[in-house]
């Protein structure tokens, strides 16, 4: 994976496969504490004990199309490379939360990348799932909640391309603003 937003897309795809209808992506950048944290939490079917124990094992997978599952191991490796770690919290029937932490200024920490692309791909291809993006950099906070947008849209589907464009522009505008800020 070239950047962290691709890892987020990959982990969120697991949530979709787990039958979630609400997926929250939280990104915390605390420069003072030198912390980059990303967390993907869902209300999917969760993992049982056996699956949880094997989730970080690349040779364990629930799917039948191939015999290896690299999503979580790749993210765990990316985090470990940057003095961070990966935590999995899961409860059968309730959902799963995957949290990865990184040393913010570590030379090997991948950039966040195009999180707006990750979000629109998720939203456009899964109109029935509610997505929340919560991104903070120090004291600045951005929140996008598609369930609120859906309320306003009424009959217009959220994956209408004009709506998708507005969402993309909104996230881009936030990123521009926060990236151009003088720390």
């Amino acid at each position, binding site marked *: 994976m070239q950047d962290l937003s691709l890892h987020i897309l990959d982990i969120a795809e697991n949530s979709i496969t787990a039958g979630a209808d609400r997926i929250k992506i939280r990104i915390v950048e605390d420069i003072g504490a030198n912390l980059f944290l990303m967390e993907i939490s869902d209300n999917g079917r969760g993992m049982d004990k056996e699956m949880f124990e094997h989730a970080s094992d690349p040779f364990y997978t629930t*799917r039948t*199309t191939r015999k290896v599952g690299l999503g979580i191991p790749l993210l765990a490796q990316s985090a470990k490379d940057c003095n961070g770690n990966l935590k999995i919290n899961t409860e059968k029937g309730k959902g799963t939360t995957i949290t990865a932490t990184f040393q913010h200024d570590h030379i090997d920490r991948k950039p966040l990348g195009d999180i707006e692309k990750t979000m629109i*791909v998720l939203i456009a291809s899964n109109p029935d799932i509610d997505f929340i993006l919560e991104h903070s950099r120090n004291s600045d906070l951005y929140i996008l909640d598609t369930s609120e947008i859906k309320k306003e849209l009424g009959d217009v589907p959220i994956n209408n391309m004009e709506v998708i464009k507005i969402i993309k522009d909104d996230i881009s505008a*936030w990123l521009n603003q926060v990236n151009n800020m003088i720390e």
Partner: protein
Amino acid sequence: MARLTLDDLKKIKEKQKATFTLREGGYRAKVTVHMGTCGIAAGARDIMTALMDEISQAKVEDVIATTSGCAGLCAREPMVTVEIMNKPPVKYGELTDAKIREIFKEHIIGGNPVEKYALVVGSETTY
């Protein structure tokens, strides 16, 4: 903080009222971008964004873009499956931005599968 205003959404809502009924009859094509770990690492997200860009430029309302997991041919990613209503599905592999745009125009809109990029024709449909 957010710039996304309710007015923007209301404008779209008004505009869409006119065209919305056209969608009721179903869709002409469904395009599935394979987004397993392998697909994402190989560039599936850019394929999906290019596809969404083409759909929005062509202003077509009856082409559905969606994602699925790994299709089992990780070495040939990024892959998509194009299903035109009442036609056998076609799987394409080793895609690039330019290839998916060509497939969109030729196959999804034009109805003619682009054989040079196709991996397989036939197999299971999802509709």
